[in-house]
């Protein structure tokens, strides 16, 4: 479904991503793990078309992509951002936020779709005409997920979707993402620094460091600590360390 080969991203002199390649099968959730500055979010933004300074090959659904994306691409691929406080327009109500993609793609049944989308992410109807600042963090992230899914994409890019949330809310949002993924057969890329979150949602993952993928492994290898690269081993050890308090 997603095929990335020899992806390089340079911002001026900053070589942020260096020769990253991986493939994601349809219906699979692929994790990208790394510390801040490892380039994991940049890879995601290059796939989303938000970063244009890339070279290499990005193909989604068998079609190689250029730097500028057309409207059809955004029907196919959607994204959920890290910070639900920053990714919702502060002057727009939930209704307006959810209508935007529908208006852009010319859906006729906007009203019904908005109601369905709210229901799907378990937001009450009363939330529809509120502003983001009137909602809690978890509710905002639900709105962001509803916005991403309202035009029925097949690929969902998740950029640290729960790291700005409290752990109890994180659990609810992760469960919601798992349910939606199963119901819609979504292909996902999840970027996170939290190995436990990645292990929970992803079948396979790549570990990034300094703009490179240092290791690709599956969930079982991650859980049992069968990692080869020392950086991966470090990350696993740290994660364990804090988990078994």
């Amino acid at each position, binding site marked *: 479904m997603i095929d990335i080969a020899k992806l390089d991203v340079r911002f001026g002199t900053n070589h942020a991503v260096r020769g990253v390649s991986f493939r994601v099968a349809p219906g699979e959730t692929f994790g990208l793990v790394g510390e801040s500055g490892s380039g994991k979010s940049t890879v995601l*933004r290059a796939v*989303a*078309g*938000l970063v244009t300074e890339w070279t290499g090959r990005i193909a989604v659904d068998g079609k190689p992509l250029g730097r500028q*994306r*057309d*409207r059809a*691409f*955004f*029907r196919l691929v*959607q*994204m959920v*951002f*890290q*910070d639900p406080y*920053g*990714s*919702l*327009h*502060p*002057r727009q*109500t939930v*209704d307006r936020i959810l209508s*935007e*993609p529908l208006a*852009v*793609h010319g859906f006729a049944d906007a009203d019904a779709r908005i109601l369905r989308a709210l229901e799907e992410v*378990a*937001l*009450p*109807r*009363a*939330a*529809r*005409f509120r*502003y983001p*600042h*009137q*909602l*809690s*963090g*978890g*509710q905002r992230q*639900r709105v*962001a997920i509803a*916005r*991403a899914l309202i*035009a029925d994409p097949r690929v969902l890019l998740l950029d640290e979707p729960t790291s700005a949330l*409290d752990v*109890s*809310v994180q659990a*609810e949002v992760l469960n919601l993402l798992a349910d939606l993924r199963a119901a819609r057969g979504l292909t996902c890329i999840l970027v996170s620094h939290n190995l436990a979150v990645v292990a929970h949602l992803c079948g396979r993952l790549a570990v990034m460091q300094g703009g490179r993928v240092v290791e690709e492994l599956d969930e079982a290898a991650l859980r049992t600590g069968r990692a080869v690269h020392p950086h991966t081993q470090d990350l696993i050890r740290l994660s364990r360390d804090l988990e078994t308090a």
Partner: protein
Amino acid sequence: MSDRASPLADAATATAALEPIAPDAVPEAAGAPPPPQAGAASGRRAWLLTDAPASRSQAAWGRRYQAWLAFRRNPLAMAGLGVILIMLLLILLAPLLATHDPGIQELGNRLAAPSAAHWLGTDELGRDVWSRLLYGGRITLGMVVAVVLLVAPVGLLVGCVAGYAGGLWDRLLMRVTDVFLAFPRLILALAFVAAMGPGVESAVIAIALTAWPPYARLARAETLTIRRTDYVAAARMTGASPARVVLRHVLPMCLPSLVVRVTLDMSSIILTAAGLGFLGLGAQPPLPEWGTMIATARRFILEQWWVAVMPGIAIFAASLAFNLLGDGLRDVLDPKQR
């Protein structure tokens, strides 16, 4: 993770239940039972303030009503609005309220002090100052509004496009802005008026030509920070065209600072108009215009002070009122302030 605005509410609403997060609307609506006679009014109020609007238009009207309620809570802004409304009323009713024809000269009664016949005295040609103030308001305020209507959208659009597009467009638009900024106002106005002939319209266009660059710069600066935000990235992810992103997502965020800037500029626009008038390039002599009135009266300011002071008070009151109104509007434009 810092404690945000309503800590208790936030903690209690991590599940999808919505009840504790109703920062506005509820208290008023859920207050004491409505007085018996105000049944229809309180019904409308409840409809406007409901927590769960049934339709988009109800929600929109509710938001407008809440904006009005918030605006009403700001006494200074209300005072500004009041002054502006009174001024509008006065200049609209000028033919009824004026005691004399503003153009009629009474050379035997030059520079008369305020009296029953001439409420605010007469000027150097014996014209009634009160009547000239009323009619002059039409020209002065009309010019100000015309300039703002020309300048604000142009500046906003140029700034937002330059800031959002970046690169070549940014450089091109900003250099054009700089060129206009570099022209001395009066020189440009002189050139313009020489081409178009003196008059109120030429003055408006001349002022507008020199007034828009600061707005463009302001809008560009705001846009540069806005375009990096995630909500703009999210808007791009909807597949919206750049024009749509700028017009529907970026531009509204630039409005509040622009509104403040516009209201701060009001008085300087009035004064520039006066300067042009004084040079014979703005409103032409028989026409009453506040700035020109002051300019011609400055010779008598020590002996016959009222001739200059009356239009001065009018300009001062109008500028102050616009400033107060602008401040109030900025607060209301930001839904978080409510």
